[in-house]
Structures are given as C-alpha cells and as structure tokens.
C-alpha cells in the first residue's frame, strides 16, 4: 500500500516546508478508505472524497494521480501515475518507488530549480481541457452516487453506465462503479480482465521521470 510510504516521506521532508495531502476517491467514503488510512497512521491531511470532487476539478481519469503544488499554489508537476510502492515482477517483492521519492527530495531541496518540474505547456497538456462530454458524464456520475447512497443500486447503475458511455477512457468512473456491486451482473464486465485487456488499457500517462537530472 502506498499510504505508509507517503507518510514516511512526509515526515522526512516536513522540516523543508513540505506537506502531503492524500485524497481517497471512494464513493463509500470512510467505509472503504478508513482501514488503509488508519494503517498508515498519517500526520498529514488524509481526506476522503465520496463524490470524486477532486478528480473532477483536476480532470484525472484513474488512480494514482499525483500533483506537485508549489508555495504559490501553482501546479509544477501534473498527473503522475505514481505508485509510492512498486512490485518487482521477478521476485514479487514490494519496494518503495525510490526514483520517485528521490525526485521529491530533489524538489524539496531545489524548489523551482529542480529538473523534475514540468513547464507550463507540459502541465497543461497532462491535465487537458474538459469538454461537454466530461461535464455531462460528471452530472450522471454524481447522480449515480446519490442514488447509490439512497440505496437504489439499479438506478445508480443506469447513471454510471451513462457516464461510462460518455467518457470511455475515464477509469475512475468504471473502476469505482464496478467495485460497488457485481461488475459481471451489473455491467457485463470482468473487472480483472478489463484492466488487463491490451485493447483497453486503463488510462495512465507515462510517468516521465528524467533518469539523470
């Protein structure tokens, strides 16, 4: 799990005016997220986002999605598919993502001079612009969330399907909805297969870390 690693780097870099904010994009809120948060025992804000407000504001389409925000509130690195922990495919062993943590250490030390920062054009292209289908999908997703919270799962599924049809590459909408019930029965989807299908790889940008800054 990533949260203990984010907590550790937060403690390491806190003296350098560095903070971590984690946001759980979970319709079920604390019921789904609490055990992971509690296991990390965080000293930084660990927030819960049942209506996916932050994903909507930052135009993200999958998790993880990591942003670096500078002292002036500017996005200086955008939309990293950065897992804090990586698994070695050969040994199966899980290790902290050292290249990414080193990049963070570099930023904490060098600030605007860090070679890891994205320029304005890169930030803008990695985030993209929302179009009418994006916001229409959000209205359906929000209504589906409300109906799910009211206990009408079938009515919720109908709204989530509309969001999926409008934005097929929004994996937040798909993976969240599949997880709330029986993905096979509700959506005719085997979630595991769908995620591994090379024809429909979950939307993630390249991490794009320079190797030798």
């Amino acid at each position, binding site marked *: 799990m990533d949260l203990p690693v984010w907590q550790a780097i937060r403690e390491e870099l806190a003296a350098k005016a560095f903070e971590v904010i984690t946001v759980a994009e979970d319709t079920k809120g604390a019921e789904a997220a609490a055990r992971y948060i509690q296991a990390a025992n965080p000293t930084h*804000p660990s927030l819960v986002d049942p209506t996916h407000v*932050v994903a909507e504001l930052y135009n993200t389409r999958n998790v993880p999605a990591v942003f670096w*925000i500078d002292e002036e509130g500017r996005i200086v690195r955008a939309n990293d598919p950065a897992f804090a922990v990586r698994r070695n495919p050969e040994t199966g062993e899980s290790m902290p993502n050292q290249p990414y943590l080193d990049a963070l250490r570099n930023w904490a030390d060098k600030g605007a001079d860090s070679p890891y920062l994205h320029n304005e054009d890169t930030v803008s292209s990695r985030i993209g612009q929302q179009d009418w289908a994006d916001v*229409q999908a959000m209205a359906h997703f*929000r209504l589906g969330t409300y109906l799910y919270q*009211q206990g*009408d799962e079938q*009515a919720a599924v109908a709204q989530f399907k509309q969001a999926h049809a409008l934005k097929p590459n929004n994996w937040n909408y798909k993976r969240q909805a599949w997880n709330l019930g029986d993905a096979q029965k509700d959506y005719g989807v085997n979630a595991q297969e769908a995620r591994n299908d090379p024809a429909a790889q979950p939307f993630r940008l390249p991490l794009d870390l320079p190797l030798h800054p």
Partner: protein
Amino acid sequence: MATQTFDPTPVTATVLYQDNVTTIADAIETGDDLWLTLPALHRAGGWELKPQGVCRDQICIPLPNGESSRYLRQEQGEQWFNLSAFARLIEQPLAHDSAHHAWSFGPPAWEWKARLTTRQAPDFTLADLQGRAYSLSSFHGKKVLLALWASW
C-alpha cells in the same frame, strides 16, 4: 421540452446543484424539464429573478428576448421557473432520474470552461476521518504533494 404538456401536479424532487442537495416539496416535472417556484429556485440553486435577469452573487443572466414562456410561467397563482431550460441556456450539464424525481446539475459554462486554464491548483475543501475539514489553499507557503488514490 416545449411540446410537453404542463402537468401542474407538484412532486417532491431532490435537486443536486453542484455542492447543494435540496429537497423541494412542490416541484413540477414535464419530461426533461424541472419547474420550481421562485423561493425553491433560490433554495436549490441560489438564483433570484430580478428585472435585469436571473441573478446569483455578482452574476446576472438575462433571459433571451421573446422566449420568456420557456423559462417562466404563471400557474395556480404561483410563478414557476424552468431550471432545466436555464441549465441549457448557461451550458450546465444535467442528468435526472424520473423514478426518484432526482435532478443533478453540474457547473455552468463559465465555471467548467475556466477550469485548469492556468496552472493555479484548483482549491477544494474535504474532511478527514475525524471530520476535520482541510482546504488546499490553507497550505500556501508550503510545497504540497497531492496524491489521489482509491481503495478499488
């Protein structure tokens, strides 16, 4: 829809209007349209009808000339406002579930089109497990790693 007959039987509707969830005891639904009384319009969406248009905070939207019957009508001694037609006017996304009388309105065009047009990080306020609310903007002066994750 303009061709729908106006059935003046009020229902109890739920209006999700960006961050607000409001129960309206006397709403009228005609097909894709949701009609609210002016007090309900204010409660659900924050809008007020003024001589210069439909206003909220510093913004006033004039209703198109000659089309006022699409937005306003007099019925049962009450003035009704078509919130769905208004959503189409201001390019606001809308979804609804007729069985639940539930209506979900997203942000108006001037908000969603302005999103992420600068590199300024959008502000938000959310709570942690203990219910303590945090805003991103209160961390001004620090470097922030913002990490979105999920249990699914």
